[in-house]
């Protein structure tokens, strides 16, 4: 019987289990709860008991540390030889010419336009609308309902929060977090952070 390990914790793990059950009812799902300690280190010993032997895996983790935790988890699973196919939830419309990397999740009702390239480990939330010819880097987190215009480029490890709209052809550099609702019409430099609780942007400078 085909089987899949779904690794994560909390509500996201429960959600991923339900989503995979709905997508592929014939799949034997094995949930693996992964905790982290006070210093945010995963207890990776739980992965030692996983047996590849034809099984696939899915890492269900949030955008903690600019999505590096989910990436770390995915990397550990890839090290162990797991294939990690993308999860496309029912009701999502993914164009036939779009490409999806491993461990990508496309939420229910999301639209991914023609020619889009979605990097591995990226999460596209429910109802998000990704215009045609967009390139979204690896390990990004696109919150539910986000709208991204055509031919936009979203860098690796970017987080786009609720209510964000990215204009056509706009480029958002890697490691950005945009968590202020509204339309972005100009390019955003890498390592720029916009949070509603801050009075100004947060930027990283390194010469």
């Amino acid at each position, binding site marked *: 019987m085909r089987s899949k390990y779904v690794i994560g914790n909390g509500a996201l793990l429960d959600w991923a289990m339900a989503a995979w059950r709905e997508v592929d009812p014939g799949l034997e799902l094995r949930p693996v709860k992964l905790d982290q300690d*006070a*210093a*945010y*280190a995963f207890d990776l010993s739980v992965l030692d008991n996983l047996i590849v032997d034809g099984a696939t895996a899915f890492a269900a983790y949030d955008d903690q*540390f*600019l999505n*590096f935790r989910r990436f770390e988890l995915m990397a550990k699973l890839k090290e162990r030889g797991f294939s990690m196919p993308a999860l496309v939830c029912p009701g999502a419309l993914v164009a036939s010419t779009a490409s999806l990397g491993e461990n990508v999740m496309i939420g229910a009702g999301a639209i991914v336009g023609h020619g889009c390239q979605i990097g591995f480990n990226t999460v596209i939330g429910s109802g998000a609308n990704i215009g045609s010819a967009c390139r979204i880097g690896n390990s990004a987190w696109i919150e539910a309902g986000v709208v991204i215009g055509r031919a936009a480029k979203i860098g690796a*490890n970017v987080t786009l929060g609720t209510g964000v709209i990215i204009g056509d052809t706009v480029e958002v550099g890697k*490691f950005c*977090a945009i968590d202020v609702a509204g339309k972005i019409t100009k390019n955003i430099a890498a*390592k720029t*952070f916009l*949070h509603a*609780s*801050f*009075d*100004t*942007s*947060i*930027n*990283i*400078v*390194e*010469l």
Partner: protein
Amino acid sequence: MLSRMPPQAYIDQGWFERERELFFKPLWQFIGLKTMLSQHNAFITRTLCGLPIVVQNFNGELRAFENLCVHRQNPVQTLANGVRPLVCSYHGWGYGQDGAPDNIPFEAEAFRYPPEERACLHLRRFALETIGNLVFINLSSNPIPIGEQFGADFLTSIQECSDAFDGEVMLTTFKMQANWKLAYENLRDAHHPRYVHARSLYQKVKFEVNIDEAGLAAFKNLGDSALNDRGTTTSRLRSFSNGGPDTPMKEVLPFSWHDNVERYGNKNWYYNWLAFPNLHIASGGGYSFIIEHHIPVSPDRTDMMVHYVTAKKKRRYAASPAVLHAHMMGAERVLREDIDVMQNIQKQLHPGAPSARLGDYEFANGSIERWYLDVMEGKIAL
């Protein structure tokens, strides 16, 4: 004891303007980090005492100028930081490290300045000193030596700590609706964290009030006597800046990124430096540093520019932006707790408000008040 600070010191525009002239302009003020200026043509711009300032690297030499083109007063550099020659984008005037224009396009055809006028064209220059990774400027035409403002031990201490800073810098600005002095009275108050930060910082660092009885006695002996000779004035000034290991931390969690940086020191302590008048540096365990620069904007507005760095990297690692981001998000909670208190105080102040009642543990604030008011009343000058 009754504070000598009148409410006008926090709310009055006239007071604020006198404070800029009599207090801030003669003092060395922090302006930025050297690591942000480490390349030829790297620059930062800030506004201090209402003056637009640019600090620019000319082949390794840092120079501070008024950021205002002598032709039409356009800012020569328009961004907060970057790497770009000192060239005004309005009419292309370029400036050299002496502040004089070294290129005026179409000078002979369009400008035709007489030689004596041409010779006078230059950006206003300000004195600049670097201590470790910290860049200070002085807006006075006759600046005091920086060693008269900061004691030798303190300079060594902030040099050593700032030399530990990594070159990847996260920065943002908090717009406080409060007078800058409230921030420093608060930072010198070790008694407030157990109340204001009860669920945040105080969970990690158990700050306690320790009264320096000898210091308190010396302060009380000051009485009302005049302390206006220069030696006493600068000696008192130097005593206002201090820092180093402050309080043991309950625990320093072993985050995985710690292996990637050269830890400053080896103590599981909270480090704290206060560089008078308006720079605060803190570190939890020597792995990362927050550098807070409180820039007065008006009597009731202060821009708190926050730089966050880890200790110097041993090796590059991909998640370093995430480390800085996580720290800034954590720091924001603590900073907001302080800002909320300061803004509440500011909102209540009015010209007839009663003066504060300081406890003995606050004698350092009392001592600074004395010196500050002597400066503001013209009894002493730098």
